[in-house]
């Protein structure tokens, strides 16, 4: 795991430096310098995400590999935050007002982050389902010559895919027809005897979240009490930066991957513009929000680059399938072949990227759990004699 390695060496660096410094005077100066550095790192990392240096399409904004980078960035920032705030620090400092309140808010955000991670994890399962359906399309339309059988097979998969994507957009909250859409090709067909045998079952592919859970509400709750600290509160700044990164990353994930209940996502959160370290994040946020607003109107299952590409290809392949007659015209076939190749490429990227993405989500999950425990421990240590925690 790349992120972890980075973190290890990074933590070492920080902590060694801190140990050297603690013995000397000028602790506060060191602190300021650390925080300065933290801001710079956050800014640098997000600039990289905003305009990747190697301009390959694989790393395009909101692609699977971009999301993986985003999670890497999250892990790095998180580690650096802990290095500054928790490691080697006098615990009594963070357990006193006003920092203690900020930390408790952070802990609350942590819990919500875990739910978002899980929801996105489920969402990736849904994307994998898209992938499977697309693979059917590919394997049917790859065959030569293309006959009616292949086209009918592809058409079925395409229809399922279109419905599945549309339903993921509607989030399946209480939507009774979802199950049918997920179940491949049950529509039509004379044998649909028990079409509606389980009308209450939604979304068989992804385990859904708790009833009423809403990704967009969680994001809103995470960001609602996020207030930039005033000048004097030095140590409040890293807490704020770390929280902002956390909320942004979660927000971007929710926008990219199908997730339960995301209405109004774009308006629920925005990175404050005036802060210099947040500029690249602001840039990303604007791009994504704009994209979201565009898509929200006509409906989309996620801004994930691969999904978007798939949606486009599916649209046009679907047109081909609808109008197909044997034997197909060679020019049309060539066009279709290209599209199928593109779809195959997208499937391949999903095949290669989705599982690692899920693993990384778990890594983030575990890291947040760990951090939460560490912060709690620090708070408890610092506040042993004073008020009980939480």
């Amino acid at each position, binding site marked *: 795991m790349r992120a972890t390695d980075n973190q290890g060496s990074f933590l070492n660096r920080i902590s060694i430096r801190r140990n050297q410094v603690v013995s000397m005077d000028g602790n506060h100066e060191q602190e300021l310098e650390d925080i300065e550095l933290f801001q710079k790192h956050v800014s640098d990392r997000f600039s990289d995400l905003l305009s990747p240096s190697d301009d390959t399409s694989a790393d395009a904004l909101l692609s699977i590999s971009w999301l993986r980078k985003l999670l890497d960035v999250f892990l790095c920032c998180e580690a650096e935050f802990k290095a500054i705030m928790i490691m080697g620090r006098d615990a009594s400092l963070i357990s006193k007002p006003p920092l203690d309140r900020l930390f408790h808010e952070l802990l609350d955000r942590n*819990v*919500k982050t*875990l*739910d978002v991670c*899980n929801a996105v*994890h489920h969402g990736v*399962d849904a994307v994998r*389902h898209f992938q*499977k*359906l697309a*693979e*059917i399309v590919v*394997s049917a339309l790859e*065959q*030569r*010559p293309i*006959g*009616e*059988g*292949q086209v*009918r*097979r592809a058409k*079925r*998969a395409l229809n399922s895919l279109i419905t599945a994507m549309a339903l993921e957009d509607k989030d399946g909250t209480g939507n009774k027809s979802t*199950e049918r859409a*997920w*179940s*491949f*090709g*049950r529509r039509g*067909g*004379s*044998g*649909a*005897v*028990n079409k509606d*045998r*389980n009308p209450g*079952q939604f979304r*068989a*592919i992804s*385990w*859904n*979240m*708790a*009833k009423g*859970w809403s990704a967009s509400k*969680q994001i809103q709750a995470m960001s609602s009490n996020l207030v930039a600290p005033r000048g004097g509160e030095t140590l409040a700044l890293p807490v704020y930066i770390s929280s902002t990164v956390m909320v942004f990353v979660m927000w971007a994930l929710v926008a990219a991957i199908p997730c339960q209940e995301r209405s109004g996502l774009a308006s629920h959160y925005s990175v404050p513009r005036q802060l210099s370290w947040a500029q690249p994040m602001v840039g990303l946020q604007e791009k994504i929000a704009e994209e979201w607003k565009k898509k929200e109107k006509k409906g989309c299952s996620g801004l994930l680059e691969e999904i978007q590409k798939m949606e486009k290809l599916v649209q046009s392949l679907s047109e081909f399938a609808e109008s197909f007659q*044997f*034997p197909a015209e060679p020019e049309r076939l060539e066009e279709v072949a290209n599209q199928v190749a593109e779809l195959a490429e997208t499937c391949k990227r999903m095949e290669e990227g989705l*599982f690692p993405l899920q*693993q990384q989500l*778990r890594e983030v*999950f*575990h890291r947040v*759990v760990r951090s*939460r425990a560490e912060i709690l421990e620090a708070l408890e240590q610092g506040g042993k004699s004073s008020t009980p*925690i*939480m």
Partner: protein
Amino acid sequence: MMEKNHPPKKSRSFGRNISDAASSDQGSHHSVEANDKDTEKDASSWDSLPQVLQEVDRFLDTLSTAAGEDEESNTSPPSEVPNSVELLSKMVESMISKYNAVKNSMRFGKDPEKDSSFLNALKRISGLSRKLGEFPSNPSMASTLNRTSSILQKAMSFLDEEFRLLLDDTKANRESDEKIQKPTKQSSFNNLNNLESDRCLLEDRTNNNESSQEEDEYPGFSPETISNMNKIATAMISAGYETECCMAFSISRRTAFRSALDKLGYDHLSIDDIHKMSWESLEGEIATWITVVKQCSSVLFVGERKLCDTIFSSNRTMSRSLFSNLARAVAIQILNFAEAVVLTKRAAEKLFKILDMYETLRDLIPAISESYPEGEVSNELFSEATAAKSRLGEVAVSIFCELENSIKNDIGKTPVASGAVHPLTRYVVNYLKYACDLYKDTLEQAFQLHLKMADKPKEDVAEDQKARGKDDKEDGTTKTSPFQAQLMSVMELLDSNIEMKSKLYRDPSLRCIFMMNNGRYILQKIKGSTEIHQLMGNTWCRKRSSGLRLYHKNYQRETWSKVLQCLSHEGLQVNGKISKPVLKERFKSFNTMFEEIHKTQSSWVVSDEQLQSELRVSVSAVMIPAYRSFLGRFKQYLDPGRQAEKYIKYQPEDIENMIEDLFDGNATSMARRR
């Protein structure tokens, strides 16, 4: 490819070597629906199927040779597609429409013979579709390919639907009534001070372990259904429709698995919800979770695995990946709950539920590694489950260690009335006893694995262990485990806390009684449980006993030595004669002292009957002979009658009876006696 040597011909001339059944058939470009007459005819000619199949097989062989040994042997691909192919296509088509004509019931599996003919025919159709694709520029073949692949698609579509219906045809779906009830919420360790509760809890725990045996029929398919599904899956996979097949399977099984979990009462809760939940509600959720996980590791996963393996017997990789994907989704869901519980505020009363969860996961982990084939998913789940288990272990250890702080923080300034057992003693000892009775091994294990994460610095533990090493050698028991060390250290803390509390009593005798009461309570509880007794060791028990004897002696001295002095035979003589005033004084002060002691100490409490009687016996043993002998010797010096009556208020029997009143917790006994 050698097509160019064989200029395409119109495919009108199908081979004539098969019955006339196909003679009406012209051209390969068939519309999908054959007219009724054709269907009739084809249907009646199913008897000729073996022959048709033979023909088609021969054709397939020719195609293989042509495609495969292209260059070496000069076999050329046949220029014509034999009539048998169209015949076969028609037969399959008619079979499909026959199947589809059946409404509202299972279509496949009614007539196994017919099914197997159908599948046999499909095998050829799918073989044809594959082989003919290798000659794309031969128009006759291309159009035949169009025909066969179209029929293949129809057949697959039918099988896909049928597969789905069969998948839904489980026992669970057939039975509308739900036999499996939501598990009753387990009671918890709420009444630590209620001595009776221990036993109930024990029973509760045993019952719970047994209840998971009931549901044996998961996933509830009949053997016929299984075999039909296997046939369909095999056919779909060999025709290249494995993605559809797997998709239908995995969707249906996920739904089924989820409803199995729902039936067990499993709620889908967000971590946020769990975090905000009251402990009472969460306890119920934990109980359900435990049932669910046990059911998963003992029944559901096993059943699911077997189902995958049976239905996808033709493709091992596929069955494994289907199972792994399902199990992974379930397992992560399950583990998230554990992670969420770990995040909730730590509290002493949660220890036992957390240990229950710990044990459940501990037992799940081997189930995971056994039921999973090696590979990424297996490793991932293994480490996920292990991580969740570790976190539960850490929390358990840290809660257990928190007990030290609870004891340290118990610094109440009001002594317990009558020197009775302090609630803290009761709480701590029952807590420890309960923990050891039911969770000794688990706690040992958790401490062994997860102590490093707890608050206690390691050196402390090491030192403790060293210090105790000596004791243990005398004891003949093994080295002190980390849990044992923690237990000891809790005991020591409790001791010093109780000692501190004893100082709240001004009366040194009452202090002794208090110490004895508490000490006795601890000792009895520990001796009464094999587990904790074993952990504390015999040496410890012996030390405690002798400590108690010391308090007993101190008590004797504090309370009774002055009384005994009154009964001393010394100091009564003045100038060689027994002094009546001194004697009277002695009797008087004895009476006063004894009455005073009787009054006070009858109100004291020694709830342990044995200790109570030991105390009384020991007091009697000292007092009665002394009084008897004093009385016997000096009674004569008092004038019989009023004087004697005034000073000798008690006969030895009275003294004996009054001693029986001591430590009764009954302040009115004196009044009653009077």
